[in-house]
């Protein structure tokens, strides 16, 4: 059994956001972190590995520096990693990205007992589309918003975290599951994991390696193959610091009304 975990390097939201002229994010100039939902997906995979031996493979698409993120995931406990990287893949929207990742997963092989974990959504795009699109393109069943995952043979029992309650579903492998942050607390790296992560294999798949895959069609990958066009990107103006009003509810309301009156809002 092999568990693929699709991960993304995203801008560190505590730093500044830079935008290219074409409206895409200037990722090279920003500090990056591992997308938080993807870390939960990795933790879910590692818990499966702890319970029943399986191979955990981290998969990402990105520029060569994304290798560092993959090394961190190996230091957490992943067995190996795959970096999908090539100029032809640059500027991809969610449709093209899922096309490429699905092509890469096909290239790597998804077996009868294999599972693909993704984070629910990335904190930069917030679309929650790539995971489900990968499942569609690989013709695999998908379960989104996983808040709890149990494995019983070739069946996964997944509790979905919905806005208004829970939904528990069972799904047979191979399948794709998108995970929410509430699923678990991702583990830290171990010191030994860090020492060893530089010796573990990271496979780099470029366009040449993937071009024979049916899903890898120049018309459906990269900026040119992306049906989404960014109209405009901008950094929203910073809001001022808020003010907390203390005291009892009545006192807080009185203070609030007083301030709104003073500012001629009411």
């Amino acid at each position, binding site marked *: 059994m092999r568990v693929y975990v699709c991960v993304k390097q995203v801008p560190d939201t505590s730093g500044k956001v830079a935008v290219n002229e074409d409206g895409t994010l200037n990722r090279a100039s920003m500090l990056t972190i591992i997308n938080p939902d993807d870390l939960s997906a990795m933790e879910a995979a590692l818990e499966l590995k702890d319970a029943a031996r399986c191979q955990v493979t981290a998969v990402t698409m990105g520029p060569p520096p994304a290798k560092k993120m993959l090394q961190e995931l190996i230091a957490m406990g992943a067995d190996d990693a795959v970096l999908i990287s090539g100029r032809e893949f640059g500027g991809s929207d969610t449709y093209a990205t899922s096309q490429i990742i699905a092509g890469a997963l096909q290239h790597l092989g998804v077996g009868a007992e294999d599972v693909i974990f993704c984070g629910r959504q990335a904190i930069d795009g917030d679309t929650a589309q790539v995971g489900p699109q990968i499942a569609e393109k690989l013709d695999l069943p998908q379960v989104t918003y996983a808040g709890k995952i149990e494995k019983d043979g070739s069946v996964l029992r997944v509790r979905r975290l919905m806005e208004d309650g829970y939904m528990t579903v069972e799904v047979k492998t191979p399948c794709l599951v998108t995970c929410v942050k509430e699923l678990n607390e991702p583990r830290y790296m171990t*010191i030994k994991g860090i020492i060893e992560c530089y010796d573990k294999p990271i496979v780099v798949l470029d366009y040449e390696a993937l071009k024979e895959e049916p899903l890898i069609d120049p018309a459906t990958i990269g900026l040119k193959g992306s049906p989404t066009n960014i109209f405009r990107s901008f950094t929203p103006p910073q809001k001022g610091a808020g003010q907390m009003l203390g005291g009892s509810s009545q006192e807080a309301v009185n203070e609030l009304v007083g301030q709104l009156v003073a500012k001629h809002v009411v």
Partner: protein
Amino acid sequence: MILSEAHELMRKNFRSFAETEFTTEIQEQLDREGGFNWDIWSKMARYGFTGCKLPVEYGGQGGDTLAYVLMNEEFSRICPVLAIYANTPNSLGGGPLLACGTPPQLEKYITPVAKGEKQIVFALTEPGAGSDAGSLTTRAVADGDYFILNGRKCFISGAPIADYAVVYARTNPDLKGSRGISMFIVDMKLPGVSCGKPESKMGISGYPTSDIVFENVRVHKGDLLGPLDKGYSVAMKTLDGGRLGVAAQSLGLAQGCLDEAVKYAKGRKQFGKPIANHQGVSFMIADMATEIAAARELIYSTAVAKDAGDKNASTMCAMSKYYASEMANRVAGKAVQIHGGYGFIKDYKVERLYRDARIMTLYEGTSQVQQIVISRSLLK
């Protein structure tokens, strides 16, 4: 020093762990109530921090001295007490065993210590033998397959929670001074072993310290550590490594003070502008940052020298501890000064760091002992 990718990643991991797990609530509770936080200990053990530089074959992580230094620094930056938790098994506790333990002893004692399943402490100091450790009076007398231990150790960090103690005792009273001293691994549950009341301390309250009393304790000869009558030199060698750990704790503590001082100086306004814009305050911050940077370079290069077997490493460890601990006290003092009256109030972290800093020039050899070690290496 430019760190390798692996060491940078270690730093990031230690920092992330400390910033997330060492909550202000835990820090303040430990300072207020003392005791020991077993939850944090378990988490440290889970990620291998309790076995940071212990060998992989005995359950450790196989990290080098620089990894150990980075762990101490980053943990201490958030909370010096919690740095001590991870430090003890890797230095004073595990050190003597690593120096001269037999494979069965290492398997029996280091493996559970590295995994965080057991606690081991270092018991050298006595009421009448502090800096002059060679004048200790605890006695061990051979009796068949056993040694009978009698005596009292004091200021033993971690004693109330320890499973084992590495105890130094005089085995040959005919030999004077540091000669005739042997090391024993003592199970703290053996009949005749008892601990005094935990000391009420100025700082690092969340790591309990007490006396250990030995009354006719029968220690099996299999728990004699290293050669008979020659334990003192191992104690001194262990203290070399321990000193570098304290230096790194001092460095982290000082960085924590600087972080707090910068944050406060930018936010606090007096005379119509942030106090950071007053030269008297900004120059203090410049001094603090410069001293911290100097200590960091000294400590990191000492860590590398130690692993490379540099003949000056022992002196460099003493220099690191001497400089960094004194520096941490200067920096903590300035951090309180920048906070003004608020720095004297317990609601502000620098008040606690100022008290925690005070131990750094005292334990594992006072600054004056470090000066002796440094000067002797030059004047011998």
